[in-house]
C-alpha cells in the first residue's frame, strides 16, 4: 500500500484503479480446500465406478494410488524428474526466444504508427494459426526432437509478449512524452528512460502469461515430437499406452504443478523487479 506522507489537507493518494482487486484478496485458503475435498470425493466415486462396474480401473485410478505414484514411488522418481527437467529446458529456451523476438517486434511497432499498422496484424495471425496444422511441416524441417519442441513453445508464448510490450511502451502519457520532447530527447532516450520503464508492469504481466503458456507449449510439443530427451508429455503418453493409470494421472498432476510453480515464480520476479513503485499482483 502507498503510505501518504504529509498533512491530511494536502493528501491525494496515488491514482490506482479501484475496480481492480488484488490477486491476494481473491485468494483465501479454506474455500479452495473445501472445493478440493468435494472434487476428491467425486473422483473416488468415479474411480469406484470404473473399478467395480466397468472393471477397467486403469482408466480412472483411485486418488490414493495416484498420490502413491506421485510422491512415494521411488522407482519412478528418476524418470519423473528427468522429464520435468527436459520440459523445463524446452520451456525456458522457448520462452527466452519468445521474449527476444516479442520485445524486438514490439519496440519496432512502437516507433511508428505505420510500423504498428503493418506488423500488428501478423501478431494476431500468429495467435490464430492452429499449431497442429504446422506440426508436419515443423517436423520435416527441424526434426522430431528438441528444436521442434522449442519452436512450438515459442509460437505459443509469443503473443502476450508482443501485445503487452507494445501496449506498455505506449502507456506513457502525453505530458510525460512532452516533458522529454521539450528537452530535445532522442528516440532512444525516450525509449530507454521513459517508454521501457513505463512498460515494465505490462511486460511482467505478459511474461507471466507467456511463461504459463510456454509450459503448455513444451508439453504439447512433446505430444507431437517424441524423439530425443522426452519431457512430461512423452512420459504421459508412455504411461498411458502401457495402461499405467495411476502413473499417467500422477504425471499429469506433476505437469500442472509445474505450471503453477512457473506462474508463481514469474509473479514473484515481477514483484521483485517493480513492486517498489507498482502494485504488481
Amino acid at each position, binding site marked *: 500500500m*502507498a*503510505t*501518504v*506522507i*504529509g*498533512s491530511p*489537507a*494536502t*493528501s*491525494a493518494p*496515488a491514482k490506482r484503479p479501484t475496480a481492480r482487486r488484488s490477486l491476494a484478496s481473491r485468494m483465501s485458503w479454506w474455500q479452495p480446500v473445501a472445493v478440493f475435498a468435494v472434487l476428491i470425493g467425486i473422483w473416488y466415486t468415479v474411480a469406484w465406478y470404473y473399478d467395480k462396474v466397468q472393471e477397467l480401473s486403469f482408466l480412472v485410478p483411485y486418488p490414493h494410488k495416484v498420490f502413491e505414484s506421485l510422491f512415494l514411488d521411488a522407482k519412478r522418481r528418476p524418470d519423473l524428474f528427468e522429464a520435468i527437467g527436459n520440459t523445463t529446458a524446452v520451456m525456458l529456451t522457448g520462452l527466452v526466444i519468445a521474449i527476444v523476438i516479442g520485445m524486438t517486434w514490439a519496440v519496432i511497432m512502437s516507433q511508428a504508427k505505420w510500423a504498428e499498422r503493418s506488423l500488428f496484424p501478423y501478431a494476431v495471425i500468429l495467435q490464430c494459426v492452429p499449431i497442429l496444422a504446422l506440426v508436419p511441416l515443423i517436423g520435416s524441417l527441424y526434426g522430431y526432437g528438441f528444436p521442434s519442441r522449442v519452436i512450438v513453445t515459442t509460437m505459443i508464448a509469443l503473443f502476450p509478449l508482443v501485445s503487452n510490450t507494445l501496449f506498455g511502451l505506449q502507456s506513457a*502519457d502525453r*505530458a*510525460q512524452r*512532452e*516533458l*522529454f*520532447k*521539450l*528537452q*530535445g*530527447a532522442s528516440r532512444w*532516450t525516450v525509449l530507454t*528512460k*521513459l517508454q521501457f*520503464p*513505463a512498460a*515494465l508492469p505490462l511486460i511482467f504481466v505478459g511474461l507471466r502469461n507467456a511463461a504459463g503458456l510456454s509450459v503448455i507449449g513444451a508439453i504439447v510439443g512433446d505430444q507431437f515430437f517424441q524423439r530425443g530427451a522426452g519431457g512430461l508429455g512423452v512420459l504421459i503418453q508412455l504411461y498411458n499406452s502401457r495402461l499405467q493409470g495411476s502413473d499417467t494421472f500422477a504425471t499429469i498432476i506433476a505437469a500442472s504443478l509445474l505450471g503453477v510453480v512457473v506462474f508463481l515464480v514469474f509473479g514473484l520476479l515481477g514483484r521483485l523487479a*517493480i513492486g*517498489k*513503485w*507498482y502494485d504488481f499482483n
Partner: protein
Amino acid sequence: MLSMSVTAPARSSSTATPTSDVLLDFRNVAMQFPNGTIALQGVDLTVKRGEFVTVVGPSGCGKSTLLRIASGLESASEGTATVETNRIGYVFQDATLLPWRTVQANVELLAELHGVKSKDRAAKAKEAIDLVGLTGFEKNLPKQLSGGMRMRASLARSLTLEPELFLFDEPFGALDEITRERLNDELLRLFVEKQFAGLFITHSVSEAVYLSTKVVVMSGRPGGIVKTFDVPFSMPRDPDIRFTPEFAALVGEVSHALREGHH
C-alpha cells in the same frame, strides 16, 4: 466567418539579443487546428524580464495552446511567436513525475537529459529540492507523496534548468485551496529569489491577481485577448493582501472582464 492567410514562420528563437528585456513576444498569433477549430486569434502578448504574466480565461479558450506555442510544442498557424531564451521551464497540469524514480532522481531528470554529469546534477537537484521545501523526501517515490508535494517536486525539476522564462499550465488546478495558496506563496518567493519571468495559465481569478504583475483576460473560442490589467501590488507580496479592498476590487474588475468576454 474569418479568412485566414497563413503567412509567417511560426516561431523563432534566438539568444543573440541579451540586451532586450522582452523574453516572449507574440505578434498577431493565431492557431487553427487541422480539423478547422480556431483556438487562438489575433493574440499580441509580451513577457518581459521581471514580469509575471497570468492568463485567465474560460475553459477551452486556448490558454494552454498559447503556452504550447511559447514552449515550442506546437507552432502557430499565423503570426510570429518569438522566444528570446532557450532556458525555458515548463510545469504541466499534472506533476508528470516518473513513478519508478525517487524524488531525487525525478528532479535530476532534465539535467540528465542534457547530459550533465551525475555529480553536478545531484548537486543541482539537491539545491532545487531545498528551494521547494522537499528536503528529507529525496528518497521517496512519487506514490508516497501528496498531490501538493508532487507538484513541488515537479517545480524543483524545472528549477534545475535555471529558467529565464517559466511557463505554467494550470499547475495547481487539481489541488485543494489550502495547498494551492501555500504553493502560490512559494512560487512568489521563488519568483523574487530567482528572477525568472513567468507566464502562468489559470482559471482562478484570485490566484491570477495574487501571483502576477500583469493579468491577461482571454475570451471564449476562438481565444483572443479581451483586456490586460497591471497589478499594482509590490513584490514580495504579503499573503494578507488577499483580504484588502484593493485586491478585492481588482479581482472584481478582472472577473467582470472575464464575463464580458464570454458570450
